[in-house]
């Protein structure tokens, strides 16, 4: 019973709220607003719908960029993993570019793709691309030779081996890569919205500082956490249901 309560996360959040409330009693609301004040701030921001609108906009940017990034990265990772000459060609480039954080590209992407949605979506694509490529490639390289040999001696063509052996065996790696990329996408979008946007949660956080609305900053942070958490739960559910036969989510029933 106690175990269940603790693992549900409710206890954790109650403790945080209490500590936060106590800390805020000793501080100025512009320095550290209380939970109640933050809640009122959230209501104020929702009353004209701007909070939900900003959340929706940020979420949509992340989702579009992330999906497009995956659509490019997965086939690319498969090809790089499968074809040695392409791997040797691209490996040095990948290991160079992947250390350049997405935020470093904001200015450049704005210059190239304009100040609108395009540059933000492309930034998210960039944030997604390398994580998913590298994970997919690693997965392809980890496919056991016995599986490929077995398929080949059962008459599978090279394309069938890719379609029916390599891809299914790589699903857990692709899945992990995509899930990690979701995290880095959120990081990138907030950065981009702070620098160049007039909508979105990142913009809201940045804008609040002009009015000394520290409570709004807290609202922004909490909504980011909620969005990321929900997205991760959705992906987790997807892994446990649609992708379960591929072992996307480790289901160790013996583990406590």
């Amino acid at each position, binding site marked *: 019973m106690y175990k269940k309560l603790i693992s549900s996360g409710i206890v954790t959040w109650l403790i945080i709220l209490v500590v936060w409330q106590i800390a805020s009693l000793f501080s100025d609301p512009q320095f550290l607003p209380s939970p109640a004040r933050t809640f009122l701030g959230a209501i104020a921001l929702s009353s004209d719908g701007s909070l939900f609108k900003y959340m929706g906009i940020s979420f949509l940017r992340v989702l579009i960029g992330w999906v497009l990034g995956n659509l490019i990265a997965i086939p690319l990772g498969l090809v790089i993993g499968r074809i040695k000459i392409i791997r040797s060609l691209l490996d040095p480039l990948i290991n160079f570019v992947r250390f350049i954080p997405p935020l470093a590209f904001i200015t450049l992407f704005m210059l190239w793709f304009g100040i609108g949605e395009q540059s933000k979506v492309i930034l998210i694509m960039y944030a997604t691309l390398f994580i998913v490529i590298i994970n997919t490639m690693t997965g392809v390289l980890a496919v056991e030779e016995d*599986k490929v*040999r077995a398929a080949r001696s*059962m008459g599978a063509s090279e394309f069938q081996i890719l379609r029916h052996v390599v891809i299914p065996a790589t699903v857990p790696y692709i899945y992990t890569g995509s899930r990690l990329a979701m995290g880095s996408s959120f990081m990138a979008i907030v950065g981009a919205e702070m620098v160049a946007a007039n909508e979105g949660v990142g913009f809201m956080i940045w804008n609040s500082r002009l009015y000394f609305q520290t409570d709004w900053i807290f609202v922004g942070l909490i909504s980011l956490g909620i969005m990321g958490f929900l997205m991760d739960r959705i992906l987790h559910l997807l892994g446990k249901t649609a992708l379960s036969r591929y072992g996307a989510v480790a289901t160790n029933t013996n583990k406590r």
Partner: protein
Amino acid sequence: MSNALIQIKDISKTFSEPKVSKTSYVLKDVNLNVRKGEFFILLGPSGCGKSTLLNMIAGFIQATDGQLIANNQEVIKPGEDRGMMFQQADSSLFPWLTVKENVEFGLRMKKIEKSERNKISKHYIDLVNLSGHEHKFPRELSGGMKQRVQLARVLANNPDILLMDEPFGALDAMTRKVMQQELIRVWKQTNKTIVFVTHDLQEALLLGQKIGIMSVGPDSKITHYYDVNLEYPRDITTSKFNEIYANIQQHFEH
């Protein structure tokens, strides 16, 4: 011996070691003939290259020199006439497919229609005593059952030749014994030609009609052949069995 199903003539295999100027042979001038329907055992100590030889018959790796003919055709790549049963079921079965789907894999690749696939997979799943487990995933099965899946999967493609690379090596002694008996039964029922690799002399004598003994590498070759004219099922306690056992054992003592 032109009626042999597998003919190996002066096969050699070198390891490419760029740093060593002198070429080192894993296998050197191996000759072997396996008749149709024969249960042939390749027996040798670890590292003698018996798995390498088996992989060459399968077409997974190429010989450096010599000629390898299976089914009247030179072996240059894997083919459906030669089915491989691997040592490790975990690395060779497809964990995302159920038992039935694993068994039907080759049939699906050949785009055989569903009703026919169902019929064939049912036949071989029954043959290896896995009925009732069709819809389980490999991870839900024991080691012995996984090897049964592998056997059914290979048989479903109806190859002429079954290549087996120490398939019972990772099983416990009791399961291994059962699997050996089952393999003999399946072999008798299907009349396949089997090349079975093992380092276990007792297993070799329990299963094989003919045993080829490989020397320790490098430069391994098949040094001796033994015909085992014992009735199946074989009994390890009989004096005849032990006589042959002792006879072969002396090759491995120095």
